[in-house]
């Protein structure tokens, strides 16, 4: 048994860390969200709900939030559609090349986010690789404008960036499925297709939920991809928060939006954990 002093010694540092760097900033942010900015650009500590009221009443805020969620939802869907088959192939059919392929999926994670975002800029731009190619083969006469500075560009880039995050938990879940269950299914007369839908897929749901949560939460809070590739129509909620804390100098409103986002993400995490628990059997 450990002594009380030892227990205190190991519990205290992380507790301090969480308090100082997580709970206190959140608390401060929560307080800010009830304050306001005076005409002379100073923060007034008068408690009121004006910021939250503004969020509901001014269209641009809740519309941008909805659009951000819609972008994140699409990113999640496409990431899953890419990551699941990839993880399935790697886990069940890659054979000896498994480790190599796994590394190839992971390596992009080591490349700077900015580099990957800029890469898409050079691909999608009017003078970009894609448009040049399309005109070269005479598929189009003029550069396609919707490719860059659009929600399309944001979804594409975020999908590229967050697919590995969706891949990892799915792959881990598939790797944890005992192979004798697959054999048992075949033994009982199930074809490979039936085995996938009746055994492999249900047992991989916790991984898919975790992967979807990663992709959704990470892309919902993203502000660089919309900043670099989004254009006016691809603005996301985080861009608004960034400008409110910066040029617009309205920290209280920014804090209110941040707090709503936090609430949204935390409830999402809570929900997805419930879902994962419901579907895990190990």
């Amino acid at each position: 048994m450990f002594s009380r002093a030892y227990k205190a010694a190991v519990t205290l540092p992380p507790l301090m860390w969480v308090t100082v760097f997580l709970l206190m900033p959140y608390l401060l942010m929560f307080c800010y969200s009830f304050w306001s900015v005076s005409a002379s650009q100073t923060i007034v500590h008068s408690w009121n709900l004006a910021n939250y009221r503004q969020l509901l009443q001014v269209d641009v805020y809740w519309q941008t939030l909805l659009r951000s969620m819609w972008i994140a939802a699409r990113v999640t869907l496409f990431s899953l559609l890419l990551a699941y088959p990839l993880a399935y192939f790697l886990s069940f059919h890659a054979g000896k090349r498994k480790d190599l392929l796994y590394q190839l999926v992971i390596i992009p994670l080591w490349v700077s986010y900015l580099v990957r975002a800029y890469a898409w800029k050079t691909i999608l731009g009017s003078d970009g690789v894609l448009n040049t190619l399309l005109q070269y083969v005479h598929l189009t006469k003029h550069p396609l404008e919707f490719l860059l500075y659009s929600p399309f560009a944001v979804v594409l880039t975020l999908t590229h960036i967050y697919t590995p995050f969706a891949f990892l938990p799915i792959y881990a879940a598939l790797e944890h499925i005992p192979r004798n269950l697959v054999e048992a299914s075949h033994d009982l007369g199930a074809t490979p297709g039936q085995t996938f839908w009746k055994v492999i897929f249900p047992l991989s749901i916790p991984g898919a939920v975790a992967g979807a949560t990663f992709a959704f939460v990470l892309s919902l809070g993203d502000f660089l991809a919309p900043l670099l590739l989004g254009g006016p129509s691809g603005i996301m909620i985080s861009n608004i928060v960034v400008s409110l804390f910066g040029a617009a100098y309205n920290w209280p409103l920014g804090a209110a939006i941040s707090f709503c986002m936090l609430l949204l993400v935390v409830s999402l995490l809570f929900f997805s954990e419930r879902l994962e628990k419901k579907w895990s059997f190990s």
Partner: protein
Amino acid sequence: MMTTSEIALRAAGNSARGTTLLSIRNVAKCFGKNAVLRDISLEVAEGEFLTILGESGSGKTTLLRIIAGFETASAGEVWMGEERLDRQPPYRRRVNTVFQHYALFPHLTVEQNVAYGLRVAKRPEAEIASRVEEALAKVKMSAHAKSKPSKISGGQQQRIALARALVNRPRLLLLDEPLSALDANLRRQMQVELKSLQREVGISFIFVTHDQEEAMVMSDRIALLRSGELEQVATPREIYGHPATAYAAQFIGHTNLLKGEVRGGTVRCGPLAWSAALPDGPALFSLRPENVRLTAGNVPTSGTVRVRGRVRHQAFHGATELIRVECADGLALVARTPGSGGTLDDVELEFSSADAILVRESPERI
């Protein structure tokens, strides 16, 4: 399904003589350069309980997996009746397996696990319900139909795995060390239950185990596998009473291996000598301890071999005692005697020369 009289017939006779159901022909399996199975030929009769017995690494599980279709043989064929089995995927074979660690689907209830094979075969729901109920009743698990596998004990999971396989009415059931995870008492109970269940359903069983006692208790025939080759295939009585090789004699039960020399119709082995109609040369004999007795002062009948020695070790086994006796010329004999209670010292042993069974040497294999 067989009729009761057919089952009774088989139980009485040597079931190996029944109609052949499965025929394994010259099957070999290599993993890379490593030969796991070499030229295995074996037949299984309808309704037979055949045990593949062997140490770990003998290739017994690989052989079972080839029959089930999880491995492909490097050479040879597997036939079931007129049908070539080894070219079909596992899900087309009318063979079901009880896996070593049961392999129950953790996301399905007991009932759904048992119904799995019938569901994928798209049987009508009413039929599925009645067959599942029947199968669960047969293994006495009806009360747990709605439980998840993680909520029931190992022995119960074992029964579900059995019901899940049998509900499909396979022609052949494969069992891969299904009792190895159970504790000794439950294991003995399951051995008896499994055997009587097999008689009842009349399906051929191929049972894989490393436990020779288990093999003896349950099997109609035992196929003893050693380093990828069949050492002997025979009924438990035959294999025990007349082991073909030194390995078979030692692996199944205790034995005394006597290295002798035959000259002019007489076998000599240290201080022992008896007559036998064998060609001249070295010969190896297996002599079971229970066939070696303490002499009771009577006059030896013809064919009785006697030898004096000093008891070196005495081990109490309940109803019997195993004594190890050192005789002249470095010969040591183990005898099984009725527990006398007393400590023995100098003794005279005897055995009937007919009980010394000639066996082949078992050369070392890699």
